[in-house]
């Protein structure tokens, strides 16, 4: 039941407890309890809206940054990653295989703000060897959702 509940929530977390209960064949109370448990166990981490900021006046600039670092003795990459992801400007941070070590997503009000963050905060961190910053020009798809993908239901209202 929990797996199916997660599948439902992944697609749409605005269904009511009653609706999810009907879909799962359980009571609304059971859904509520299951969700509480999933929250407490840290399985469901957050319920976020996916926003197309381009359509909002105060635009947000996103940069994808490839960071090369020296791993620290006894702590590997975790410690330096933590020093990076604790900044609120960093919205995502992953350890990568391949040509660089950490993949960091940074958001800011404009390019200057992001560039300054990289220059003043990220790059000077002791174990950081280099940063390669790529600004996002246009988002086509995120979290399996196509931006501007919505189109009117243009099916014939009645068929045969």
């Amino acid at each position, binding site marked *: 039941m929990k797996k199916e509940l997660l599948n439902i929530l992944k697609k749409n977390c605005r269904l009511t407890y009653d*609706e999810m209960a*009907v*879909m799962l064949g359980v009571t609304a109370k059971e859904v509520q309890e299951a969700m509480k448990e999933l929250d407490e166990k840290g399985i469901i981490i957050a319920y976020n809206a996916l926003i197309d900021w381009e359509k909002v006046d105060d635009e947000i600039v996103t940069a994808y940054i490839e960071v090369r670092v020296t791993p620290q003795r006894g702590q590997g990459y975790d410690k330096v990653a933590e020093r990076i992801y604790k900044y609120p400007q960093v919205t995502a941070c992953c350890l990568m295989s391949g040509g660089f070590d950490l993949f960091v997503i940074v958001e800011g009000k404009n390019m200057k703000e992001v560039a300054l963050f990289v220059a003043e905060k990220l790059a000077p961190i002791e174990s950081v060897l280099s940063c390669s910053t790529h600004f996002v020009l246009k988002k086509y798809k995120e979290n399996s959702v196509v931006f501007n993908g919505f189109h009117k239901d243009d099916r*014939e*209202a*009645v*068929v*045969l």
Partner: protein
Amino acid sequence: MNISSIKNLIRKNILDTPPSGIRKYFDLINEMKGAISLGIGEPDFETPWTIREEGIYSLEKGRTHYSSNAGFIELREEISRYMDRKYSLQYDPKDEILVTVGGSEAIDIAVRTFAGPGDEVIVPEPSFVAYKGCVMFTGATPVTIELKAKDRFKLKPEQILDAITEKTKAIIIGYPNNPTGATMDHDDYAALVEVLKDKDIIVISDELYAELTYQGKHASIAQFPEMKYKTIVINGFSKAFAMTGWRIGFVCCNAEILDQMKKIHQYALMCSPTTAQFAAIEALRNGEDEVRRMTEEYNRRRLIMVDGMRKAGLDCFEPVGAFYVFPDIRSTGMSSDSFCERLLLEEKVLMVPGNAFGACGEGFVRATYATSIENIREALIRIARFVKRIKK
């Protein structure tokens, strides 16, 4: 001769066949703002991209010619594997599979191969509106069976026995059923096999909605060895793979029958659209995950829809196949027609009156859940408000 005398030349069988009753409210809803249609008998999903891509690629490559009449052999081989994998039915791709222009063509040519003036074809109702029409066009007589809500709209052996005469050539069975959403399992068919196995009657089994079975496994009467040789299985891509507009389906049956059906297909259609055939090959090779994803989504909406209809005060049999619910509206004291008309005019929700699928569908309405959960949610609020108002 003048225009008014043309009617005298048109065959009586065609004139006597009524147009589909489903289209009745089409003009009305088209002029309405904010209306929600639960009348659409097709998936709201777009064809999965991997399938569309193959169609586009075939066009880019200039593969725009006819295929063999029966369809590309690669496609027939995929169909053969698919039918075996999914339904344990074995058909030889060389001479037991025909690719058709949708399931609709398949129904038409199957009926035409066996029925003509003076013959009878048994059509259980409520059912897909085209069955009766196809029979009437041939000059044969459709003999209807009334499926009952108390039987969960399953076909019963005694009903078949009552309908059979010495003129009976074929029976058309359609499960999972449009419009009721009913299904037949293996045991249900076993009972029918008992009465059909010794009769010289062809079974036309329309299994277009087979993939959309939400409880248990889809069963086919062709799975019974004593029935397989005289059963024509019709399936396709429209519903399962969300490919309605591509117009592609297929028929599986023994070569003796298929050779004859193939002639009609050959002269009337040549072959099915080749772009659709290339896309269909991809659908069978790599489309099944997408089918599962869509089916899971339909199932969630189905549960919401049934629950909502019941909460609105309508008696609603639980459908376990296709993407329709078929609530009983007799408790409102209204006819199916006036219920649908008033619901559309007063609450802007379109459902299809049950009698469009046969006289015995009177007292019921068909609603599809092949639409977004937001539409379903809003439609259910309006339906509940409407039922409450008229039951006062």
